């Protein structure tokens, strides 16, 4: 039986009269890599924010394994192993890239550790991450002074250095130079091989096909598809969400490409 790492039931969130999440159910199997897709404004980032406690939901349940986490503050959810990165990562001005990575490894961060000498030790993992994401050259620069793409890499590295069980990434490749995207894929595959479950909001389909075993698609707050990435292009509701109804009709009536049935309940 597949172990569920993260599950959400009947998630609802509205901003005023605008319903952003409309009874969304989602289960993420432990060790899987799931893509979270949808047109702009479909509720992907809000779903990440609700799952990770950065926005309070109006109704619904979120569970990490068998523990309910829906009412916990974001920092507590992160301490329990569910981490996230931001679409537009902001980095501190008066900390170096290396210092940000060191701070991200949260072990021994208390006052007691600082006083009794269990303070900072050279971390091979930090250097390894810097090397892997081509950030070694800027390791001693202020973290706010590096490029937008590098900030994105640093935010992913920081989340991984923290040792998450589940990592939610909000558009990890947006603004990252194509040459570096391969580095992100490798890094995420490695993390996944070490047991990290990944939920990735992404628009770059090549990246999604390369990495994700399964995709869930949101449109206007509703979950409209759950299938492997290869089947997305033939999925009428996905096509409709992205390209409009006329295009969806063409896909649905095309004799050689039968439409994929949307499962009533989403589960892997």
């Amino acid at each position, binding site marked *: 039986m597949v172990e569920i790492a993260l599950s959400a039931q009947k998630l609802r969130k509205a901003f005023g009269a605008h319903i952003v999440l409309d009874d969304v159910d989602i289960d993420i199997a432990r060790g899987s890599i799931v893509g979270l897709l949808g047109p702009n404004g479909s509720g992907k980032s809000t779903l990440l924010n609700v799952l990770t406690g950065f926005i309070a939901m109006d109704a619904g349940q979120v569970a990490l394994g068998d523990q309910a986490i829906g009412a916990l503050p974001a*920092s507590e959810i992160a301490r329990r192993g569910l981490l996230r990165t931001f679409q537009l990562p902001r980095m501190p*001005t*008066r900390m170096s890239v290396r210092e940000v990575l060191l701070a991200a490894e949260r072990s021994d961060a208390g006052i007691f*550790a600082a006083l009794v000498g269990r303070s900072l030790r050279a971390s091979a993992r930090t250097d390894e991450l810097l090397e892997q994401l081509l950030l070694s050259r800027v390791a*001693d620069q202020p973290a706010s002074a590096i490029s937008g793409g590098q900030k994105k890499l640093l935010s992913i590295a920081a989340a991984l250095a923290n040792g998450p069980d589940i990592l939610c990434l909000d558009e990890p490749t947006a603004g990252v130079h194509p040459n570096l995207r391969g580095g992100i894929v490798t890094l995420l595959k490695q993390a996944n091989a070490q047991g990290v479950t990944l939920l990735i909001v992404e628009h770059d389909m090549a990246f999604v096909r390369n990495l994700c075993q399964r995709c869930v698609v949101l449109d206007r707050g509703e979950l409209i598809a759950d299938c492997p990435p290869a089947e997305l292009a033939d999925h009428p509701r996905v096509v409709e969400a992205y390209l409009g109804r006329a295009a969806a009709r063409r896909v649905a009536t095309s004799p050689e490409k039968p439409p994929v049935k949307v499962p009533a309940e989403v589960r892997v």
Partner: protein
Amino acid sequence: MFEFSLHVATIAALYGLLALSLNLQTGFAGLVNFGQIALFGCGTYGAALAFNNQFGPVVGLLLGLVLVSLVALFFARLGRSLGSDYWGIATLAIGQILLTIATNETWLTGGAQGISGLPQLFTGSTRLQGHLILFSVTLALLAATWWLFHRLTQSKFGLSLRLMREEPQFAASLGYDLDGLRRSAMLVAAVPAALSGFLFAHYMTFVGPDQLFSTETFVVWTMVVIGGLGSHAGVVVGAILTQMLFAAVPFAKDFFALPSEYVAAMRLTLIGGGLLGFLLLRPQGLIPEKVGSIRG
């Protein structure tokens, strides 16, 4: 002249403790505290209330530490629901409320007259010797606080404070409990401020509400801004320089043959002008914070 220099040095060291304390809050944890003088006041009134109730300085010291812990925790508690600018205004308000209590609750604090006659902590064979011992103790305390704060800020705890200072959401996303960090930073920073107040009370032998005016908070702010937010060495240098300037004011008054009411005005002008000048021309201060000094 030696006695005068010793007095200036002692006051500079006491202000140095206050500057280190404010720097840990504002320079490292991003807690913009405009009620810093209230923490100092816990130390002075701890000493005075104990003395007024026939207890010795040890009880005064403990009372000061208890009071300052409560005020620090209250400050930290406020920070949970307020943005940093609003929090700053709230701390200023709390400082003013405590000042009003000190001024008006005459039965407890002696009101505007304050409490006088506190004993000197150290009595050598002469008064000067007593002052020398007090200066040495203050200097040792300043060095110990500096060392402790340096150690704290060079550790992962310090890194987490700096991450909270600049990107609280990022810090929370990495699992840092911002309420807990604020609490720890306030508690640790409050102790030297109260110790400074305790020593000051016994040195001046008088405690009164006029020592808690908010202008005093801005004297400490000036020291921190001149020295460099986020730099321990900087803020101690800032405290020494500001005190030296203050000490020079009466001489300047005599030199330019100015009336004596100019002395207070000139001090305020120095504070305001220094603060403004540095904020505009050298916001990083004389000794700026080092970025990237922690290499793991």
